[in-house]
């Protein structure tokens, strides 16, 4: 559904409304045109609106969605609908026009409320489960500490026995400490969006640091195989170091009979893939996914009494995810070793520029456009939503735009209005949309500055590419 659009003059009189405005408010266009825009504004903000409108027309600036979420649209039958409004001043021959794109927020608010309720319930459930797991894991080392302490106090023991009891208590107290540390690490990582201190980092150096930080063990020598031309990655180096040392010490721990550990890194597309391969216990096929769950411990490791908190890999996964990457494990089976792989984003050395910016939330369709433009001698960059596209355009990243109308958050129309306000009429904008565009909306889009309007199909993709080639490479 397109958004309602209301155009006013500098005195707040409505000069145009689209059909969507009629549908939403129940008014006919003739009821509205010529009236003051305040007739469409709900009680709480109506009184103050005249003043706000006047100060806006004195200093007209583009104002995006999300600035004023308390405004209500008043309909013919008196109902008031929560809306969000974007404003764009446009100079015309008849003077200043203010284009207001109105978004009905009811569905969004309903969905948000529902999602929040679901998220709250899930959080309570996950928290309960976690508390139960944590208390369970903490009771085991605690049982040794409490038990041996009582034996020391209440039984006659030899010097050797006393030393043995104290040694166990110390070991278990250390275990409890690492459990608490790991647990706090994980809580910190999971407490909302993790603040990464990212910087361009040389992965080779980072791998060396990780190898140096784990103790030397001749039974499990660590080999590094990294090409000299590996690109820099953009990462939080402390966090990635933690991932690397964790994987290296795991590789050691789960190779009780020794064996070489191999660290490799190579570029794959826009990322660097790092892998840590051992010749240890290996994995059952059904363990691959469970491995990264909190407090998961492999049965065989338990039987062999290989110590661990069951949190290390959960921490690794969180850190890699926070970098927008993925971590996975593979193994040829029990006794055949394990390989852990994760990917990190590489640093882009040159600023992004291209002939055409694709503002399109459907990745598949963007790929299709990219290929067609490429066939017409045009390069393109892709932005999945309008906010990124706006930033890139402001940086001068592209000379023309292919624009989808139905986008997440900021809609195509609003992006177009913003573009025309900041960049003027010289950037060709071709609209490619799934939406059926009626003659009236077609006119309105043209009035907002669309160069051409197409449907989403193979023929129109070709037509759009031809038009852009004609405009950019005459």
């Amino acid at each position, binding site marked *: 559904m397109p958004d309602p659009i209301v155009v006013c003059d500098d005195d707040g009189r409505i000069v145009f409304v689209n059909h969507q405005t009629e549908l939403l408010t129940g008014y006919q266009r003739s009821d509205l045109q010529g009236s003051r825009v305040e007739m469409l504004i709900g009680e709480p903000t109506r009184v103050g609106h005249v003043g706000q409108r006047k100060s806006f027309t004195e200093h007209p600036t583009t104002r995006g969605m999300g600035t004023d979420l308390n405004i209500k649209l008043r309909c013919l039958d008196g109902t008031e609908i929560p809306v969000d409004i974007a404003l764009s001043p446009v100079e015309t021959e008849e003077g200043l026009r203010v284009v207001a794109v109105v978004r009905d927020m009811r569905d969004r608010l309903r969905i948000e409320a529902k999602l929040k309720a679901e998220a709250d319930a899930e959080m309570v459930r996950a928290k309960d489960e976690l508390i139960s797991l944590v*208390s*369970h*894991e903490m*009771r085991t080392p605690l049982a040794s500490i409490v*038990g041996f302490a009582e034996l020391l106090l209440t039984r006659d023991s030899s010097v050797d026995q006393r030393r043995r009891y104290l040694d166990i208590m110390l*070991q278990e107290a250390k275990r409890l400490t690492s459990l608490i540390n790991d647990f706090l690490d994980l809580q910190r990582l999971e407490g909302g969006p993790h603040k990464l201190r990212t910087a361009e980092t040389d992965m080779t150096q980072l791998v060396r640091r990780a190898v140096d930080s784990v103790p030397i063990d001749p039974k499990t020598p660590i080999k590094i195989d990294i090409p000299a031309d590996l690109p820099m990655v953009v990462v939080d180096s402390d966090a990635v170091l933690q991932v690397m040392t964790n994987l290296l010490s795991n590789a050691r721990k789960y190779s009780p009979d020794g064996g070489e550990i191999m660290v490799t890194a190579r570029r794959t597309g826009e990322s660097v893939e790092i892998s840590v391969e051992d010749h240890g216990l290996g994995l059952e096929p059904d363990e691959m996914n469970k491995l990264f769950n909190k407090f998961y411990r492999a049965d065989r490791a*338990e*039987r062999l*009494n290989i110590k661990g908190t069951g949190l290390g890999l959960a921490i690794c996964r969180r850190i890699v995810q926070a970098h927008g990457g993925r971590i996975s494990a593979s193994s040829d089976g029990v006794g055949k070793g394990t390989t852990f792989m994760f990917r990190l984003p590489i640093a882009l050395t040159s600023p992004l520029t291209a002939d055409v910016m694709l503002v399109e939330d459907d990745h598949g369709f963007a790929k299709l456009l990219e290929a067609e433009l490429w066939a017409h001698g045009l390069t393109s960059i892709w932005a999945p939503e309008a906010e990124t596209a706006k930033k890139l355009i402001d940086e001068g990243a592209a000379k023309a735009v292919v624009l989808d109308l139905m986008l997440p958050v900021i809609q195509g129309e609003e992006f177009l209005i913003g573009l025309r306000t900041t960049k003027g009429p010289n950037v060709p904008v071709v609209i490619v949309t799934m939406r059926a565009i009626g003659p009236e909306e077609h006119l309105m889009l043209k009035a907002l500055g669309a160069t051409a309007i197409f449907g989403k199909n193979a023929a129109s993709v070709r037509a759009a590419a031809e038009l852009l080639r004609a405009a950019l490479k005459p």
Partner: protein
Amino acid sequence: MNPGGLPETILVADNEPHLRELTRITVESPVRQVIEAADGDQAWALLKKYHPLLALLDVKMPGLTGLELVKAIRADPDLAGTRVILIAASAHESDRDAGMAAGADFYVTKPFSPADLLGSVEAVLAAAADPAAG
């Protein structure tokens, strides 16, 4: 009691070696011999072989869990004479109920006092020797 003059056999099953050691030290005596299992499957093999008088079973072990072992013991006529104490890291009422419902004679929560555990072992064995008193 101990009619054959042989030591009473007690099975301690826990995958945590330090807790096995603690439990063994706590209950072992000149008349009580302790056998140890590091996981549930090993525990079952020892149960079938030695028919111990008492089994102290950790609830969460690799292989057969303590809860599964209690059920298997109660379903096996050969092991009718074996008493069971479950040792669990969960203090939840519902877990305790599930353990007792499965047929455990007693349920101990970690951390535990060795003296209290020994008291429970004595009580369970006394009840087994004299069902009327139990």
